[in-house]
């Protein structure tokens, strides 16, 4: 008899026991996997909004006599059925942290099965500290390498704050809201800024923009690549009449619109991690990606509603990104992949589980 055969014969009984144990364990795992299902309104609900939790049978078989919803360790809803819903919050005390929840299904025999989850309660409001401008030209960028959020948003200039306040006032007028309500609701801030820039700014080519700067006291403004306009100068001189024919209050091309939107939002205390300037790959357009309605969304020409559901053609290929925390602005695949690589995107590190793609910012693809 070979040594291996001898070994197997001697331990036959032991092997049989082991096999039974493995089968039993597998059955336990399968039984243990039967869980109810629970979901929240979105994966990054705003801290100033209510959250709706919906619990359902999931893959639990048999009769369910009670379904409970637990939020933050407390049972908040109970139904003698296989489903339950609960609308709770807002949860400002969980700002920028996880809020745990669970569905607990009680089966007819009294056994309970549980499914837990969490959402990241996003609060991009009330961030008033900012990076001081450090550009070589009085804080403005003097080279492509100095095209940072700090140097282009110019949050140190009161004109930026003044127009940010105009934005929430005018949005409140248009929507019959109190300005206090607008200021304290993250989604309203985003919508107000998108509306303000759409209403007051129009496109003008970079063939003309440097000439207007030169004719209005900024002949030495030489920021390097693509002539991005600092937000304060867009607001103060881009609509001037000196050797120019403006058709709106402010003028500039796509990156100037994007810089102004980001600056106005930041001036309202919107967090730097929640607002990006994005550049298409191949380079053809610049716009914003902003935390809105619990996920990152496109903010481009038009109101915030403009691009939420529009995915009928390749309008955006968001790839290069920069903001106050990441930069400088640019479009090289080795240095400016901040959108793809940044852990802020999504906050709390919770994405839809799919690999990053520029399409993630469309509502029908992003969760």
């Amino acid at each position: 008899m070979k040594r291996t055969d001898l070994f197997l014969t001697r331990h036959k009984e032991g092997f049989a026991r082991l096999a039974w144990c493995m089968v039993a364990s597998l059955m336990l795992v399968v039984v243990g996997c039967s869980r109810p299902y629970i979901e929240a309104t979105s994966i990054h609900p705003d801290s100033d909004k209510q959250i709706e939790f919906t619990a359902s049978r999931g893959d639990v078989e048999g009769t369910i006599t009670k379904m409970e919803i637990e939020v933050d360790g407390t049972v908040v809803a109970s139904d003698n059925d296989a489903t339950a819903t609960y609308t709770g919050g807002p949860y400002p005390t969980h700002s920028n942290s996880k809020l745990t929840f669970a569905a607990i299904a009680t089966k007819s025999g009294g056994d309970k099965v549980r499914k837990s989850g969490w959402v990241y309660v996003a609060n991009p409001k009330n961030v008033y500290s900012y990076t001081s401008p450090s550009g070589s030209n009085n804080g403005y960028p003097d080279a492509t390498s100095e095209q940072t959020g700090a140097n282009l948003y110019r949050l140190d200039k009161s004109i930026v704050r003044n127009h940010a306040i105009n934005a929430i006032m005018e949005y409140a007028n248009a929507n019959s809201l109190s300005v206090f309500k607008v200021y304290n609701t993250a989604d309203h801030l985003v919508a107000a800024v998108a509306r303000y820039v759409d209403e007051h700014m129009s496109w003008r080519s970079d063939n003309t923009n440097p000439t207007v700067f030169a004719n209005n006291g900024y002949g030495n403004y030489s920021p390097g690549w693509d002539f991005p306009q600092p937000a304060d100068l867009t607001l103060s001189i881009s609509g001037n009449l000196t050797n120019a024919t403006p058709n709106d209050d402010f003028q500039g091309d796509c990156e100037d619109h994007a810089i102004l939107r980001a600056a106005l939002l930041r001036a309202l205390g919107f967090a730097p991690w929640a607002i990006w300037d994005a550049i298409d790959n191949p380079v053809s357009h610049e716009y914003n990606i902003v935390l809105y309605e619990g996920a990152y969304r496109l903010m481009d020409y038009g109101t915030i509603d403009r691009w939420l559901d529009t995915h009928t053609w390749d309008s955006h290929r968001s790839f290069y990104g920069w903001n106050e925390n990441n930069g400088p602005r640019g479009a090289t695949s080795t240095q400016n992949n901040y959108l793809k690589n940044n852990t802020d995107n999504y906050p709390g590190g919770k994405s839809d589980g799919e690999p990053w793609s520029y399409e993630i910012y469309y509502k029908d693809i992003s969760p």
Partner: protein
Amino acid sequence: MESLGVTRSIIKIFHHSDEFKKLISHTERFIMKLHNIMHKKYSGLLIVFVFFFSSQLFAQQQEKARMQPISFYEGAVAVEKISGFVELHDGEDPETEFKVVLRNEGERSEQIEVGFRGAQARKVSLNQGESQSISISPTTSFSGEAGRAQKADIDMMLHFNGKLVQKPVETVNVEVRLPQQASGLIRANKQLKQGDGNAYYLTGQGVYLTELSVVYTTGPVALDIKKQIRPTRIDEKGPVKVTLQIKNKGSGTAQNVLIEEDYDPRDFSGEGENFEVYEGKVNDRRLLWSQTIDRIPAGETVEISYELIANMPVHDTKLSATTASIDGELVGVSNEIFLPGE
């Protein structure tokens, strides 16, 4: 030199900005001197001192780069009415006269400072239930040259005690008077109703007031441009007819008038010699349309129509205003058209 190493490490903890880097080199030199002066047994004191010094610098740095949250006036005084006039001049700052009617809705007397943003505030005392009318002036700015296109900005945002007023203004009625010799209003950033002659009115109820910008000209040509599209909603791709009615409301004949429009080329395309697809130097693309009108005599109207192609439904965005210029000087701006959502 152990204490020196520790102090350097402490500084590095706070080292996070370019401005701070400059401070570090000075601090390090200072530490070196201190270290040479002080005996080794005082090294502990040196560490404590440098830690304190660095913390202070760091705190100052943070303080310097901080905005204040917006503060709101939450008291009992409401703004019943803002009325008055803005008198625009040829080549000079505008004159203003504003009356603000305040009402104390509270149950005790109130003392507040009332002023427009950035302008001098005025102290007011109001007894319980009292209404009072006061005169205050807004900040204004002006750009442009006499005899040409000019722009005036009037900031009408109200502050009480230096804070934003939470309640909207109940009634607004402000007259905007163009100079007598003005050929007309080119554009305003708020809707103004035309009155008699060169008078326009800003009116509203239950509104927050922000800046009013008015562009006007005292040159011989001012064009009133009305832009329309058909269909008025773009719910599907297909042709869109654009019509421009251009009236010369000035006293002189307009010659070689350049009419310009631009569109987002993702939304629209066009065919013909008037269209050009602009490719920016690096970034951005635009569909441009332009046409030159040889002559528009004073008082006459010219109508132009052309066809755009909507590449898809276009919602929740505006079509930019049409610009009219003669030799690079602005003589007219049309209305903007907002394309509503579904």
